[in-house]
């Protein structure tokens, strides 16, 4: 796999992405089979047991995972090219990492505050909007969402200290 890194601009080669994914899928299938076997994967007197359907599903996953892994190993890495280039990976991470942080922050600040911060940060950082413009989008959107969920439809979403100050 080392030679793949010679490709200009390629962060991850298509070949290694194929192999890693196929191996993960195979492992997933194996776990499914293992747990299904634990609860019984036979054919009882009146039809299949709880585990038998997932067991065979797991088996098919393992088989297709192995076949995909092997064919990925045999494929020509030059022909396959890159899974993702450095620049592309940077762009994807620019969304993915803030999204992960956003989702993690919800637990502390509640969903409305986290969402407002996320929208402001994203707009300023990615869209190069001014702080005022960003706030003017983020705050009304979240106030609207707050009223819609908490007040009109009375669906409680995760809330934090700010909402608690208003008695929610």
């Amino acid at each position, binding site marked *: 796999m080392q030679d793949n890194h010679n490709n200009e601009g390629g962060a991850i080669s298509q070949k290694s992405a194929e192999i890693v994914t196929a191996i993960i899928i195979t492992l997933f*299938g194996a776990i499914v089979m293992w747990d299904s076997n634990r609860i019984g994967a036979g054919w009882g007197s009146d039809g299949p047991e709880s585990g038998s359907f997932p067991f065979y599903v797991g088996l098919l996953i393992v088989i297709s995972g192995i076949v995909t892994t092997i064919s990925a190993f045999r494929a020509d890495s030059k022909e396959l090219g890159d899974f993702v280039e450095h620049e592309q990976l940077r762009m994807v991470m620019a969304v993915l990492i803030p999204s992960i942080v956003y989702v993690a922050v919800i637990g502390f600040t509640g969903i409305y505050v986290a969402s407002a911060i996320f929208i402001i940060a994203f707009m300023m950082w990615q869209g190069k909007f001014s702080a005022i413009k960003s706030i003017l989008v983020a705050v009304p959107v979240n106030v609207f969402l707050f009223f819609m969920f908490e007040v009109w439809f009375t669906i409680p979403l995760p809330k934090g200290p700010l909402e608690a100050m208003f008695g929610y």
Partner: protein
Amino acid sequence: MEEINALMGGFAVALTWQNVMYMFIGTILGVLIGTLPGLGGANGVAILLPLTFSMEPTSAIIMLSCIYWGALFGGAITSILFNIPGEPWSVATTFDGYPMAQKGDPGTALTTAFTSSFVGAFVAVLMITFLAPMVAKFALKFGPAEFFAVQLLTFCSFVGMSKEPPFKTIAAMMIGFALAAVGMDTITGQLRLTFGEEELMRGFDFLIAVIGLFGLGEILLTMEEGLAFKGTEAKIDAKVVWQTWKKLPAYWATFIRGSLIGCWMGVTPGGATPASFMSYGIAKKFAKNPAGFGKGEMEGIVAPETAAHAAGTSALLPMLTLGIPGSPTAAVLLGGLLIWGLQPGPLLFVEKADFVWGLIASMYLGNIAGLIVVLTTVPYFAAILKIPFSIIAPVILVICAIGSYTVGNAMFDVYLMVVFGIIGYVFKKLSYPLAPMVLALVLGDTAEGAFRQALLTSQGDMGVFFANGLVGGITALALIMLFSPILSKLWGMVSGKKAAA
């Protein structure tokens, strides 16, 4: 002609100022609820149900059912604009709706979806009006074996059409089945694949997976292309509705097939989601240009939307005549009827004729109201695509997060949605097809359940799937569908040889 008189009486009940106003309030709320992923029709109706207790039952049910129609219409909006299905039954709408919108035609895509929904609903209401007692009898014929056969048919009509490598297709599909099996096994009450984790007991909700795979996954792919759409060049024109309407009659066969599939699946609780997949699959099999499907084909929007709305509407029939809900929303409405002191079931048409015909009349009116509401919003919704990506992307992500949370009231689902987003991105890039995975996730649980229920009734005898004409016929049809690509190839070889000779 009895029905016509009764229906006219129904219109008299439904057409008061108050009721018409409730219709519009209901559809607007419904569109809103349908647009937000996670907040489905069933939730919306359940939430508003207690507020309607002090209303007149007829008005209340009119408003609540209009919320349902609105949600059926609204589900398509986010599917088309952002590739995020607002409702489970609009997943199939994303396949062609989103590419069409990306090509710069969001107005056409939305108009097609709304109009198809309306046609599906209209056919279903006609059926409810004239064939209710007959159809109810038909529904009674469906036991576990028949349910399984229907699921199998849905599945078979959809598979065998992806261009992706076969082993990747199998892997994706089986992953869907495996995820569907997580949680409690309905047949034995055993917990499966939960590894002692409390969060996994709930199982994987199909909507969470879909919001992640399609919604977040799509945003990641778009980012990779370097913020490709800084607002698409969407041509938005008030005339788009007329222009689309001129093209639609060409798909009359798809409309008819979609409506029939929808009515059938709605009455024999198969549900709107399988109906939309089945209709899409069959439309593609019969299409003149199957290669265009998935790239923004109009027919690929017509088929699932017609079937989904027909199924959603006809799901009220078994609720009214038998007291069994054909969909989760119908289940909530059923609860509402009981609370108002109405007993759905065979006698409802006799004892509360006014109410029933008022409701049926309101189905006609409510869907017309719904169509008016949604068509007027087409330009506004289409205009959303003109907003720069750096504004719309975080808002979409917020909606994805809220949507995932509201499905099961759990933060865990929000984390899961992000994981599915990453899976969606990787799978799309490595050409693992997502559609079979999603379909397996929808059907897996119910299909397995029906299969095992059927075997319990037959004490393990597989013959139960061919035990009578109905189940045997559906099973056979399913197998024909599954092998039709091979069969048509063989046919082609045979006839080809003849031509050569």
